[in-house]
């Protein structure tokens, strides 16, 4: 009882503490992810719908990257669904009111890696805001049709759950614009609705195809007697089956469509024992067999897209494995050409502009393509960063390189930073097929290892990108090797020379795959019932290694002991060895005792780098219909486990990552989000730091030199949160304070890491760079309602720079360009002169950072240091550069004073030139004015306004040298220094000329003006109004 009271008290205190601190993603404020993309290979597209009325507003749904919208026909896109489920099954626009848009979540291309949805969403403001309107448990939505004559009537085809029996499938209908839903056609808990079509002329006529299907971790079945094609002529109240002319049952998936311009004409691809395309010209009453070419019949479960031209009922499009089109209603097909560049295979979506049917948009496993010639040739859209990475790895280069493999898009490598920012062109394709693990060889900078599906792997020379096959082969005494679709290739954490891979056996090489050693027996359950992949697929044989089972899925070498190796399998075994591979212990029963299901996939293992006996693991049981998040921790080498839970968790778990500095900082990636804990897993929060709320986070790495958090997302490419050091600093003690200014690391004085021509990126995806210069960081417990600014003072207490501070809750970043306040430069003239925006870099020394937040001030010291790694730019060079720049700085300020005097005098003289009466006085003032103007025109550009006409006078000449000297890391050249002397002479000459004008004209002019001022009626300011 006492124990319980203490526990209760502890919980209460924890609760109060939580209430006070409430650490969440906003605590980290401005620490926002960079979206590296890229758009180079893009990713799987599942839906494309345009707005008929304007033909240039497009909504694109992706398999794992949410919904993207373009309002310029695809020239640019923006994500509009980032707070919701990332897996998109279908999109529909109400063409009678295009501000109404529906999104059905849960892709319905039922591959092994397909994600799940959480219902149907509606927007009434063209995608700005969304409300979930139901169908939460359907998991997959294939199509949404809005009645063209009454948009209150909406039909949703829901195949329903893939991994379990469920009643949440069938055809759903709303008659109130989506407010409420009824299931209007349902067969059984194994059979969902795969397709729906509504006759636009008679919207009570509705066609559906029903599909019996099911996936298991080790097999797929498409087909059954419950599949079929049905028709209703009363808006879904009653149904009859359409059979006449169709092949004999059982059926698998049926793709069905009708000709919008002649809806009695229909086509369907019927998956059966002999799959083929069928046509009907009587509203489905009778059918006739047509083409059965490869592109028509291949993989009906995956290629379910079939479209008829909006105006021409004979023009049929079959986006499938490739792109085919028919001019005879589907009797014969031609294939698209590659004249516009290669078109990625595996097509799932097609939108044809009804106003100009030559124009169409195609969604593939590798992004969106545009055709302007009815699908004959295609152009790729480079600006959709929706690639589905499985894993990511980083090397130790500067900048480090990121490596990863993607669904149907091979393996790629790119630098994390590049001149001008990382863009599509920085990504290099390095290995083919579907890509998964890519491991850089941390002992050899020119080598990486990559694979394609089913365990085919190579060693790649990163200088030539030629590869050598290093796949371990079956030994005489071994069973046939069973490679997972996503076979692990893992570098040793304790010994980087160790490289591991695994089928059902674990293999190790220490010489880059030239020789392999099998270091385990079969570590799986070796359940033969789960090894019938050759029979997988159902009606259409489909055995692509995606269903390979009883395989090793994850490998981890302890960072503290290379002989301690952890292995997880896809059938529930979690094995450990402590002697490098001799004596394996299966820990499956131990984690099961903690409430984690048996036979679950062990999706990741993270042996602690702080304690040899501590290990974390994630478990993925979704292939048995269990979408829960399973995360376990053991502190006794796997003997006992504790399941870690959190109400924040959503989605089945892919990856647990322990921080490399702070043992209490953990990151968890799941199918539906990224989560973090700063207290060793006691409490968790969803990280939303410019990361979509329900992003599919498959892999997480922390790059040790930069402390960047690098994410492999399965639908939004690579994301990087630069330098997570502040997260490590934000203990609960710290976050309770109102304001915290973080200690500044010594700052290297630099113009930035990269140069470049400065041309803006033209199209494509741009992922930017990490901060060129380390920002000054501070924490605000709450958003500031008063002014916030940061001031920098030098050692003498002189203000060097004042910068507006951001006011957001959590970590704020202020960027100081390491320069002082620019000089005042001469005003006026006809040219924009940027000398007044340039200042020299400060010199090394100790500076003070003062954070002023409302009426409070906080200070910290900042050490500015020279970049001693730059052998071409010594500290003495920097001093010379500074001195030269400051000479020019002062020249600018002197010129400012001189020109200001001229401007002031000219303004006053001009006011009185028209007022004075005497001709001699007029002449005096005019002459004086003109002389001043003559002088002014030598001091700054005064004549040419056009930006295409160069005019350089003293101000512009000073800026030219000043800008050159300030903008580089180099001591001034002899000629630059010489020119400073020359320009200084010009300045002196200008000053002397001015003095002479004062002597020649000043007294007389002043006398005339003063006399005029003393006259009561000649107030020129009034006269001018």
């Amino acid at each position, binding site marked *: 009882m006492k124990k319980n009271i203490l526990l209760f008290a502890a919980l209460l205190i924890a609760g109060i503490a939580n209430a006070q601190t409430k650490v969440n993603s906003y605590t980290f404020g401005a620490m926002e992810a960079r979206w590296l993309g890229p758009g180079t290979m893009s990713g799987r597209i599942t839906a494309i719908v345009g707005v008929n009325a304007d033909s240039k507003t497009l909504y694109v749904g992706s398999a794992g990257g949410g919904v993207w919208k373009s309002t310029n026909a695809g020239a640019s896109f923006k994500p509009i669904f980032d707070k919701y489920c990332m897996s998109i099954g279908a999109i529909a626009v109400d063409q009678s009111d295009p501000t109404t848009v529906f999104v059905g979540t849960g892709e319905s291309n039922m591959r092994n890696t397909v994600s799940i949805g959480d219902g149907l969403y509606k927007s009434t403001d063209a995608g700005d805001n969304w409300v979930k309107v139901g169908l939460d448990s359907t998991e997959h939505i294939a199509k949404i049709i809005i009645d063209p004559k009454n948009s209150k009537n909406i039909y949703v085809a829901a195949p329903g759950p893939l991994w379990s029996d469920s009643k949440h499938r069938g055809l759903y209908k709303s008659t109130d614009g989506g407010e409420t839903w009824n299931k209007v056609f349902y067969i059984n808990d194994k059979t969902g609705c795969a397709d729906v079509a509504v006759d636009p002329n008679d919207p009570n006529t509705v066609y559906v195809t029903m599909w019996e299907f099911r996936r298991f971790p080790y097999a797929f079945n498409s087909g059954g007697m419950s599949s079929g094609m049905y028709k209703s002529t009363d808006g879904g109240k009653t149904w009859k089956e359409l059979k006449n002319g169709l092949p004999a049952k059982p059926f698998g998936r049926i793709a069905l469509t009708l000709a919008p311009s002649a809806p009695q004409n229909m086509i369907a691809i019927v998956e059966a024992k002999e799959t083929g395309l069928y046509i009907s010209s009587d509203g489905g009453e009778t059918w006739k067999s047509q083409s059965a070419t490869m592109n028509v019949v291949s993989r009906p479960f995956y290629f379910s897209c079939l479209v008829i031209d909006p105006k021409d009922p004979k023009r049929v499009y079959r986006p499938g494995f490739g792109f085919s089109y028919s001019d005879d209603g589907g009797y014969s097909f031609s294939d698209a050409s590659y004249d516009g560049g290669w078109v990625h295979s595996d097509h799932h979506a097609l939108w044809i502009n009804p106003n100009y049917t030559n124009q169409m948009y195609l969604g593939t496993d590798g992004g969106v393509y545009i055709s302007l010639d009815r699908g004959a040739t295609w152009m790729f859209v480079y600006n959709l960063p929706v690639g589905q990475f499985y894993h990511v790895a980083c090397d130790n280069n500067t900048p480090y390189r990121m490596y990863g493999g993607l669904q149907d898009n091979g393996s790629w490598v790119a630098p994390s930073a590049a001149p001008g920012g990382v863009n599509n062109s920085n990504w290099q394709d390095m290995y083919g097929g579907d890509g998964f693990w890519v491991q850089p060889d941390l002992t050899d900078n020119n080598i990486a290892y990559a694979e394609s599906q089913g365990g085919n792997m190579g060693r790649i020379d990163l200088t030539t990108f030629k590869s050598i096959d290093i796949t371990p082969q079956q030994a005489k005494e071994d069973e046939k090797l069973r490679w997972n679709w996503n076979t692990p290739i893992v570098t040793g954490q304790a010994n980087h020379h160790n490289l591991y891979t695994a089928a059902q056996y674990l293999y190790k090489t220490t010489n880059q795959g030239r020789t392999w050693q099998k270091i385990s027996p079969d570590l799986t359950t070796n359940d033969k019932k789960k090894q019938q992949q050759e029979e997988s697929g159902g009606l259409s044989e489909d055995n692509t290694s995606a269903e390979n089972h009883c395989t090793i899925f994850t490998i981890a070498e302890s960072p503290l002991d290379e002989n301690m190796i952890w292995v997880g399998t896809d059938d529930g075994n979690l094995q450990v060895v402590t002697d490098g591979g001799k004596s394996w212990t299966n820990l499956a029963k131990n984690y099961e005792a903690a409430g984690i299901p048996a036979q679950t996939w062990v999706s990741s293992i993270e042996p602690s780098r702080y304690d040899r006996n501590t290990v974390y693991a994630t478990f993925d049981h979704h292939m048995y219909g269990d979408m829960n998040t399973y995360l376990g921790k053991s502190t006794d080498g796997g003997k006992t486990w504790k399941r870690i839970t959190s109400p924040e968790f959503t989605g089945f778990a892919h990856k647990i990552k322990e921080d490399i500095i702070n043992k209490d900082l953990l990151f968890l990636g799941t199918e539906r989000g990224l989560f973090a804990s700063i207290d060793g897993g006691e409490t968790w929060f969803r990280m939303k730091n410019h990361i979509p709320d329900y992003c599919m986070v498959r892999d997480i790495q922390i790059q040790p030199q930069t402390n960047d958090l690098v994410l492999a997302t399965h639908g939004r490419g690579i994301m990087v949160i630069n330098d997570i050091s502040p997260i490590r600093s934000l203990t609960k003690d710290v976050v309770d304070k109102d304001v915290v200014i973080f200690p500044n690391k010594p700052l290297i004085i630099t113009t930035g890491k990269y140069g470049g021509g400065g041309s803006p990126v033209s199209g494509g995806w741009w992922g930017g760079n990490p901060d060129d210069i380390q920002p000054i960081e501070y924490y605000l417990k709450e958003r500031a309602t008063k002014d916030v600014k940061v001031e920098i003072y030098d050692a003498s207490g002189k203000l060097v720079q*004042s910068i507006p501070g951001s006011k957001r809750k959590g970590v704020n970043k202020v960027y100081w360009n390491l320069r002082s306040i*620019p000089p005042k430069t001469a005003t006026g003239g006809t040219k*924009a002169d940027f000398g007044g925006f340039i200042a020299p870099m400060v010199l090394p020394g100790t500076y003070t950072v003062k954070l002023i937040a409302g009426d409070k001030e906080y200070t910290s010291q900042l050490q500015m240091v020279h970049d001693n790694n730059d052998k071409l730019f010594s500290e003495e060079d920097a001093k010379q550069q500074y001195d030269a720049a400051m000479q020019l700085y002062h020249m600018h300020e002197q010129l400012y004073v001189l020109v200001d005097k001229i401007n002031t005098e000219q303004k006053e003289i001009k006011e009185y030139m028209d007022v004075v009466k005497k001709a001699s006085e007029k002449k005096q003032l005019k002459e004086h004015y003109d002389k001043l103007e003559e002088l002014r025109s030598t001091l700054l550009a005064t004549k040419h306004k056009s930006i295409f006409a160069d005019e350089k006078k003293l101000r512009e000449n000073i800026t030219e040298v000043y800008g050159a000297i300030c903008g580089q890391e180099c001591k001034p050249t002899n000629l630059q220094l010489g020119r400073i002397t020359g320009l200084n002479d010009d300045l002196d000459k200008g000053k002397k000329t001015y003095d002479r004008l004062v002597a020649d004209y000043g007294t007389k002019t002043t006398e005339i003006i003063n006399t005029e001022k003393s006259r009561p009626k000649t107030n020129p300011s009034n006269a001018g109004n």
Partner: protein
Amino acid sequence: MKKIISVVFLLAILLIGTNAARSQTVDDIIQKHLAATGGADNWKKINSIKKSCIRMSRGVEIPLVITIQQGKGYRSESTISGMTSYTVITDKEGWGFNPRNQQKPEALPSETVKLSQDRLDIQGPLIDYKAKGYKIVYLGTDDVEGTECHKLKVTMPSGKEESIFIDASNYYLVRTIEKTKANGKEQSFTTTYGDYQKLPEGIIYPMSFDNGGSSIAIKKLEINKPLAEDTFKPVELKK
């Protein structure tokens, strides 16, 4: 038992709180916002405003002056190196002038003038919104950089849309996102407000705002002071 009652009581309060949040209406939020920022009456007394601001860019202070006369005109002018650019919008016309690349003021497209009419409204869309023809819907709460805000969506008579985020704790204006269409292409423009100060006129006014990557601080505010006759004409004003 007592503990159980307490827990139930706490849960009940939490549930009531949740329901209360849900039951907020547009008018509730606007009323609370106006009460927190000085009251509608004080706002309605403001007929003209001249904001003399500083836009900070690379350590350089760039003067920016924004002048508005309620329903009549809007002028913003920015001076760099002694050269002044300006934009003027009235209820009928608009002009822009940049001395670096224009010989004379150029007329703004009529679509731009139409979509900019809300700039002539000092009070903002929340005061007398129905009479002004604005439609406003409440879209629940949303986070703005970690601050929970009520989100209102305003549709103006011009068709322009603006999302307004009101801090749920103090009911101050935190952010606006304007959405406009240029030649059919959507563009959005985000402004985030801060440094709220009480003015002698009785209103709480945000004295700083960030937009387009710039931070702008209002250094001087002149309210209901006479404006130069040419303020809303396409001419450079006498300094």
